[in-house]
């Protein structure tokens, strides 16, 4: 069974209630302080109903949108990332013993989470983080615990932000993998389709019936229109080669003159995974807690190795970021590190736009 069903908007409250009863902490985009982030919701009323976002480089505003539209806000700074790869998390507790010391792993414990309103690019980003944190034998227990029981309700994008470019990165705007249930919002209700056995079961629990061909066609049309109207694009043709060859392109210095090296782009990027590990020692010297925190290739200390710093200048660091994200990431993990969500563009205080930087490097290639 993979057929589309029709889901009245009121059924969203049922969905939230059922997930709650099944033990999930139900999360959805919640408006706070002028943006949205995934937070706990108790009913659809907690979602930013009738609100839309206005995004451009370095600027984000929420504004009244269309009455009754539930998923009118495309995205906010908060992706799924903090809910799986925690911004700060204790890993170990090391205690002094009479002889030597003893290290205990700190297990994380949390109820399974269900996320409602996840976009195609968010799911693509999570799949990329899976390749990092659940790689082969090297599995991050903290990430895995949160990841394995999560339930995802995707929402196909019928409107993109001007900063979005998922079409270029082939990750959206329609959710194609990684969800349990996917919804397309039409003015009069949702078209819902399952993406997993758990999603199929949910459709039965919700008592949904097959959608008419007209609804399905309307859903398709809205998504296609969104794809055609995508605000930004990035030409990915032979991109790794281009960036490797253009390591000395003068554009790196030009962008570095504008870049604050503040690291906001990497913090909001749903795939960036760099972190630092800090030992927090009690003042009596008998116990130390080892904590992992988000870090960034834009912080100077991140490139500090014994005796030298590998990337002392901002142009070294911006180049590192973009070249890793769009080129060496492919060598390393088999896919680009960018899903085209546009967050790094919107949330850069200086309004630096990676699609513009790539285009500028492409335009000036070989002239450096």
């Amino acid at each position, binding site marked *: 069974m993979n057929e589309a069903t029709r889901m009245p908007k009121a059924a969203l409250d049922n969905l939230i209630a059922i997930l709650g009863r099944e033990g999930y902490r139900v999360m959805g985009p919640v408006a*706070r*302080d*002028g*943006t949205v*982030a995934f937070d706990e919701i108790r009913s659809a009323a907690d979602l930013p109903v009738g609100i839309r976002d206005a995004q451009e480089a*370095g*600027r*984000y*505003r929420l504004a009244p949108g269309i009455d009754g539209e539930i998923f009118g806000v495309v995205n*906010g*700074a*908060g992706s799924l990332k*903090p809910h799986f790869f925690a*911004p*700060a998390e204790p890993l170990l507790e090391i205690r002094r013993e009479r002889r030597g010391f003893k290290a205990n792993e700190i297990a994380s414990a949390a109820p399974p989470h269900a996320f409602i309103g996840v976009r195609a690019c968010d799911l693509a980003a999570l799949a990329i983080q899976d390749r990092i944190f659940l790689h082969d034998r090297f599995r991050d227990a903290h990430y895995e615990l949160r990841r394995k029981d999560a339930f995802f309700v995707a929402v196909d994008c019928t409107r993109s932000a001007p900063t979005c470019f998922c079409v270029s990165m082939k990750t959206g705007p329609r959710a194609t993998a990684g969800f349990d249930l996917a919804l397309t919002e039409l003015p009069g209700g949702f078209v819902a389709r399952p993406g997993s056995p758990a999603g199929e079961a949910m459709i039965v629990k919700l008592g949904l019936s097959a959608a008419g061909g007209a609804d399905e066609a309307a859903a398709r049309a809205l998504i296609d229109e969104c794809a055609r109207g995508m605000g930004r694009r990035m030409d990915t043709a032979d991109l790794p080669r281009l960036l490797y060859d253009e390591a000395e392109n003068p554009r790196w210095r030009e962008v*570095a*003159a*504008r*870049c*604050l*090296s*503040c*690291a*906001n782009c990497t*913090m*909001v990027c749903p795939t960036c995974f760099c972190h630092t590990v*800090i030992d*927090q*020692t*009690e*003042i*009596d*010297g008998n116990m130390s807690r080892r904590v992992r*925190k*988000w*870090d*960034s290739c*834009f*912080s*100077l*200390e991140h490139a500090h190795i014994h005796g030298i710093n590998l990337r002392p200048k*901002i142009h070294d*660091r911006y180049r590192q970021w973009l070249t890793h994200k769009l080129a060496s990431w492919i060598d390393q993990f088999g896919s680009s590190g960018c899903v085209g969500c546009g967050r790094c563009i*919107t*949330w850069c*205080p*200086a309004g630096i736009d990676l699609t513009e930087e790539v285009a500028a490097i492409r335009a000036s290639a070989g002239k450096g």
Partner: protein
Amino acid sequence: MKPRVAVFKFASCDGCQLQFLNAGDELLKLAGQADIVYFPEARGRALAGPYDLAFVEGSVTTPADARRIIEVREESRYLVTIGACAAAGGIQALRNWADIEQYRRAVYPSPEFISTLSTSTPISEHVRVDFEIWGCPIDKTQLLAVTRSLLFGAQPVLPGHSVCIECKRSGNACVIVTRGEPCLGPVTRAGCGALCPAMNRGCYGCFGPADAHNMESFAALLADQGVRGDDAMRRLRGINGYVRPWRESADALAAKK
């Protein structure tokens, strides 16, 4: 023998020393690890040096203090400054751009009794400093972490990156991007946990310049936000205004207007 710890005060408000007292239980534990032999803010007993670890709060603003800091240095194995006054000259460094004679006459009924320097300068302009803990006031956790490292004889490590990293780790909405509110976070050293952005206001720069910063781009950003001339200059000439990158940037803004 337990290491001998001392806490000295120069020109300052005592707020950083208070962070020791705010440490509560941790301070008692520290007292079990080290002998706090000089700390006038906390106790009457004052023992002479040498000291294994000297904390210095405040800036140098008088000829007597300029001599005293040299004595402190000579008596101390490690000298660690605490706070913006000691690291950058503090808010009182505003005098560095003003006429001290005028101040003296305006403020004191008998100015002839006041012996002062025309500048407020950081400790590092006078003696070698082993480590600087930034902040106005300093963060208690950072203070304890540095103390612990030095008691172990290890190099203390504190983050030098921007406040923005802490801000995003906390999940705050960026005030620049969502409201166009000026914020010093991108050029300021982390340490406070992004306290002001969490309260929906811009960062004031209490922890001084981040180790990687771009003041020119930041000044351009302020100008884009309509913060220009004197207003932009004053934002940089605050608690840490005399520290080099901010001083130079504010001076450039002042010269431009």
